[in-house]
């Protein structure tokens, strides 16, 4: 009895109240934003069940109850049940594909009586995070072992595939956030760098694929991507292999050949310089493979692989692009400025920018925004909720939200780092990576910086499923954290 009392008391004292305070700030701030976004001129009662703002109060209240309940469930339970929860959730996701009714082309919402619907994809994240924590917390797990890392990546990809099958590509992309956790746990940084390079190629290549260098039949996109690929490769040879001689040979050859080709194209016969660049890439890849064989260093092989991926990736993007859903392709095109048609596909982002831009320094005041209330911004209370913050609270308010988020994520890093067991830390990093990814994509798309992918801004976007999902994710972690001192007693 005394032991139990002590542990309860210890847990209460060990709860990370800083995180909870930030959580409450975000939820309350989010509620005001939903009020602004959903305010109906004909029904100004913010607390009525008829309005979204009234419903959001209920979702927030039940979230707090959920949080309290979660604080009572011991870590041991998750330790035992992680894979069971994961399995159950995957089955639920699979069932959803079959039984969910078609909502705007996606089959991700399960009706639970009346008008209440839940989206299992929102709850799958915590199950995946738990499973990853359990897997990587096992004694003997090593990220260097192909079997171990393969299992971890498999745990991530399975729900992604199921969610893509529900036609919710946006929600599926969130699972890429787990790679941030893997990076923290020792995954090689070059993988993260390769991912970054892919994004750059994709964006640059597509943005400028239609533009040509003045007076030359050369696509700026193709040219830049190939040049970037070569530069990255040469840099990697320098950083990872420290082979100055090889770096010099490659750098001078590439620079010299490219320059000559361009001069020839300008002054003698205009031709597509990209053919030369493509040839240089092939030569370079051959040279690095030769080095790999000669020196027997696996790093050269990996760099060669990166170079091949770089070159191939660009030529694959066009094909890849065709595989995206039509609305997603258009959204990416719009983001990249390829199709800037204010009444067409660019409408969402354009209206979002108008709404935010019209806020000015201090904003128009609570409930005084016109753009978000009059439905100029589509999905204004869910995916585009940040517009309301921008319009009604201005630069001060929106920068404030971002800063609170930054503090929240930093705090979660600190809390994750103080975990005594690997499972706790892995889970913690999963949680914060997901929040960071949501913030990055959601705010980025509203500001016109990232593709328009329909994922919510945690605690701000209207909706019970997402609020409960994020609460679940967070408070399991806070309970794990609260137990950190118990083991030592």
């Amino acid at each position, binding site marked *: 009895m005394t032991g139990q009392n002590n542990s309860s008391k210890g847990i209460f004292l060990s709860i990370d109240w800083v995180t909870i305070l930030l959580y409450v700030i975000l939820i309350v701030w989010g509620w005001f934003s939903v009020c602004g976004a959903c305010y109906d001129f004909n029904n100004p009662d913010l607390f009525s069940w008829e309005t979204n703002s009234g419903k959001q109060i209920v979702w927030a209240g039940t979230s707090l109850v959920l949080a309290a309940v979660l604080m009572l469930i011991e870590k041991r339970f998750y330790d035992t049940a992680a894979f069971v929860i994961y399995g159950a959730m995957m089955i639920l996701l699979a069932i959803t594909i079959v039984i969910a009714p078609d909502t705007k082309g996606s089959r991700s919402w399960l009706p639970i009586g009346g008008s209440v619907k839940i989206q299992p994809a929102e709850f799958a994240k915590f199950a995946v995070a738990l499973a990853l924590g359990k897997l990587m917390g096992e004694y003997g797990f090593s990220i260097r072992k192909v079997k171990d890392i393969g299992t971890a990546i498999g745990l991530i990809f399975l729900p992604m595939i199921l969610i893509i099958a529900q036609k919710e590509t946006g929600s599926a992309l969130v699972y890429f956030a787990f790679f941030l956790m893997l990076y923290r746990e020792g995954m090689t940084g070059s993988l993260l760098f390769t991912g970054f390079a892919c994004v750059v190629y994709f964006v640059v290549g597509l943005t400028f694929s239609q533009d040509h260098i003045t007076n030359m039949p050369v696509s700026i996109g193709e040219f830049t991507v190939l040049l970037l690929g070569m530069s990255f490769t040469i840099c990697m040879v320098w950083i990872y292999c420290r082979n100055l001689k090889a770096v010099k040979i490659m750098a001078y050859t590439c620079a010299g050949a490219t320059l000559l080709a361009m001069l020839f194209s300008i002054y003698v016969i205009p031709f597509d310089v990209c053919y030369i660049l493509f040839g240089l890439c092939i030569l370079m890849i051959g040279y690095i493979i030769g080095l790999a064989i000669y020196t027997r260093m696996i790093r050269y092989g990996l760099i060669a692989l990166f170079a091949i991926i770089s070159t191939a990736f660009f030529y694959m993007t066009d094909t890849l692009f065709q595989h995206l859903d039509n609305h997603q392709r258009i959204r990416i095109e719009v983001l990249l400025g390829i199709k800037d048609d204010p009444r067409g596909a660019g409408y969402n982002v354009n209206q979002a920018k108008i709404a935010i831009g019209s*806020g000015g320094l201090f904003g128009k005041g609570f409930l005084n925004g016109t753009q978000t209330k009059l439905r100029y911004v589509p999905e204004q209370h869910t995916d585009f909720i940040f517009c309301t913050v921008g319009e009604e609270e201005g630069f001060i308010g929106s920068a404030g939200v971002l800063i609170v988020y930054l503090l929240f994520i930093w705090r979660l890093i600190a809390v994750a780092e103080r975990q005594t067991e690997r499972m706790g830390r892995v889970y913690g990093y999963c949680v914060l990576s997901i929040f960071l990814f949501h913030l990055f994509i959601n705010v980025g798309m509203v500001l016109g910086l990232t593709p328009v992918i329909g994922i919510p801004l945690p605690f701000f976007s209207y909706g019970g499923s997402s609020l409960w999902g994020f609460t679940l994710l967070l408070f399991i972690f806070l309970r794990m954290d609260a137990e950190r001192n118990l083991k030592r007693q």
Partner: protein
Amino acid sequence: MKNHVYDYRKFVLAGIALVIVLCYIVRLAFLQLSNEEYKSRADNNAFFNNVIFPARGVIYDRNGELLVYNQPAYDIMVIMREVHNLDTLDFCRTINITKKQFDDRMAQIKNRNKNPGYSTYTQQLFMPQISSEEYGILQEKLFRFHGFFIRERTIRRYATDHCAHILGDVAEVSQTEVDNDDYYDPGDYIGKQGVERSYETELRGVKGVQILLRDARGRIQGHYRNGVLDRKPIPGKNLTLSIDSKLQALGERLMEGKMGAIVAIEPKTGEILCMVSSPSYDPHRMEGKQRGTQMMDMQRDPLKPMLNRAIAGTYPPGSTFKTSQGLTFLQEGIITSSTAYPCYRGFVTKGMRVGCHGHGSPLPLIPAIATSCNGYFCWGLYHMLNNRTKYKNIQEAMTTWKDYMVSMGFGYKLGVDLPGEARGMIPNADYYDRRLGQWNALGVISIAIGQGEVTLTPLQIANLGATIANRGYYITPHIVKAIEDGKIADSLLVKHTTRVDTMYYNLVVEGMRKAVQGGTCRSANTSMYEVCGKTGTAQNRGKDHSAFMGFAPKNNPKIAIAVYVENGGFGATFGVPIGALMMEQFINGKLSPSSEARATSFQNRHIDYGTRER
């Protein structure tokens, strides 16, 4: 703990979060702080200014008889995306159009080149101004025609068949009018002619506005700030014209089949009692949607029915002008009341001859006016222009003469409150210097009898009558007597005194009285009141114009009048009898049975003008 080697990576991740947030804050600063454009685009997006049109002021005649009023009209509007399951044939039958007209109109609405503001979400004008009867039939079936609506508007209606030129009309604003005046937006109505135009600002009132919030689909969501910024429309002011509509009607009747004008003025006030321009048109032709085609027809008409000849037509005044000459010579001391000039069937000197009809000779001013002696006034001007004791040279004499004419309201616009007034022509010394080089009195002598270069508008001739009736002054002639809750412009009430003394006017009045009693205007004589008058027979390329200028009663005059009938022959042929009937109508309020019979006979006497372009 394992993996201590990777501890630094927590800083990498914290740094990634920091970089993302910083990038976004910079982006926010760019969007929100450096750029005003988004703010104005937001306002354009969200605010819908719903304009509420005020009722246009109505127009009465001087006796309170209603002339112009407003009537509700109904525009058929359509919202394209709400049109479905339309029984096109039934719809066409209901509003009396063919299927082809329907298809053409729908295609026109959808054509963004012709209809730049087109949106499938907002109301588009399908058909303007259907009648109340058509509206009644359509309204019963409207529930079946999804997407079609009725918008109420008012159109101008006329309670009179007369006064077309005075009243003018109302039509949609032109692009120039929108550009020149911030008040107007495309599609607004504006007065185009007549009083509707000159009193546009009084009649139109002030538009009201409701500031509404509009959503992304153009649907109205409510009042902005509960309507505190809304403005109620201020109705236009009603006008009372100085026109006597009975007199106007008689004038138009008498001028049937003739070209010319009648203007009558109340001398004491300058109020215009009637202003007939012939040919005229029925103001009803300008009502509603037929205006465009009717305008086109009238503009093509060689007789120019749209032209208000009373103020825009300039004619040689003929002998009516002699009164002004007599006044000038008297004031300048060229003649006295007893100065007599010879006239042997005309003004004959140095191989120059201006013909005249037979009468006693020589004669002084009063009988010269009564008999309309050409010789007398030619001699007068001849002596004035050649008087080198009074004037240094002929230029100075001419300038003096011109100043007299201008003081009587000639040569410049009188400033009547109607658009399109012409100024007429009074030559001056400079004009002759340029035109003739060396010139002398004989070369310009015909201006003394209202011929040659001199032209006046019928309004100026009537105003001459009013000036003589007032014995030396006139009030700016004006057509609006009163503005409800307002004041007519001070410039319309100014008293203009001529350069001639009242005592000389009395002599001219005497001459005009004699003309009626036993001179050229005998047929205007009546026992009911003392009429004073002066005929005019103006030579021109075709048959002479017939003119009359007069007033009555001689003492305390109630009406001054000018009648001008193009190609009517002698002044006595049309001018005098028409003038006499008009004066009788106004002074007695009605015509005697014999006058009524005479009026009908004049109404039926038409002049053949051929089809020559004028």
